[in-house]
């Protein structure tokens, strides 16, 4: 069991997972998103090689309307 903070919300997972698996679990696969792990960018091309660890703080962002 690991616990991640994703966009400020605590989420628990049965087993360790990669960034790509997290994205899939959030139904965001194929969407234009950017991901930060503990303050560092994880390039989209590396999502499937990036393991996530217990306690990681993850931010996943999109573009929204703004000035």
């Amino acid at each position, binding site marked *: 069991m690991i616990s991640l903070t994703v966009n400020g919300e605590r989420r628990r997972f049965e087993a360790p997972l990669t960034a790509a698996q997290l994205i899939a679990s959030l139904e965001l696969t194929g969407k234009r998103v950017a991901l930060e792990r503990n303050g560092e960018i994880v390039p989209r091309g590396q999502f499937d090689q990036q393991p996530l660890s217990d306690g990681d703080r993850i*931010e996943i962002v999109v*573009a929204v309307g*703004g000035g």
Partner: protein
Amino acid sequence: MDQLVVAGKTYSSRLLVGTGKYKDFAQTRAAVEASGAQIVTVAIRRTNIGQNPGEPSLLDALPPSRFTILPNTAGCYSAQDAVRTLRLARELLDGRALVKLEVLGDPHTLYPNVVETLYAAQTLVKEGFQVMVYTSDDPIIAKQLEEIGCVAVMPLASLIGSGMGILNPWNLQIIIDNAKVPVLVDAGVGTASDAAIAMELGCDGVLMNTAIAAAKDPVLMASAMRKAVEAGREAYLAGRMAKKLYSASPSSPTAGVIAPAQNKAA
């Protein structure tokens, strides 16, 4: 042909528009089309994480293949948060380096924190970003941001979302006169005449959002702004006549006027 050049890239439109505060993405797209803008700003925000799957995406309505997407740092109150936000934006937009930096100082006025803005600009320029920077209308800060390496300086006309127009044209004039990079008015434009005045002063462009989005008919206002920016630019290039309190030089010939009527009643 008269074109806006930012970071070596040319744009035929000198109007840049934001994408916030619209009713829906269809209205956003219609307003952007009517404005003729080629550069459109977006904000970077946390995605919903499963609460609302299938939510439409702004970048589907405004594809980066068609528009130059300019990510901003709206809502950031420190250099560190602004830099993080733009690193995420660059990743989101496939490595595109053109960004809009704004570091706010106060949630009530949204006035820029120029000290944090300078710090953020230094870091971003070092990391290879092409920084278009929102700032106050302080000519010294504007020059320092240029010297740091920002590709455009964007002083406010008045406070963000206020629609108060250009409060200090004299400061803007000094910034324009001193600048070697494009100067764009960003924030405070309320209606078409404000945009025209900014361009007549010699600004290279105008960036606006609320003036269009908060109009009763945003698409019509977008069209008005397009014309205002074009008209103001042409007036600037044409070179206006000198102002004088009154003129002893009428526009019509003084010779050949018909004989004055005889006043028989006298």
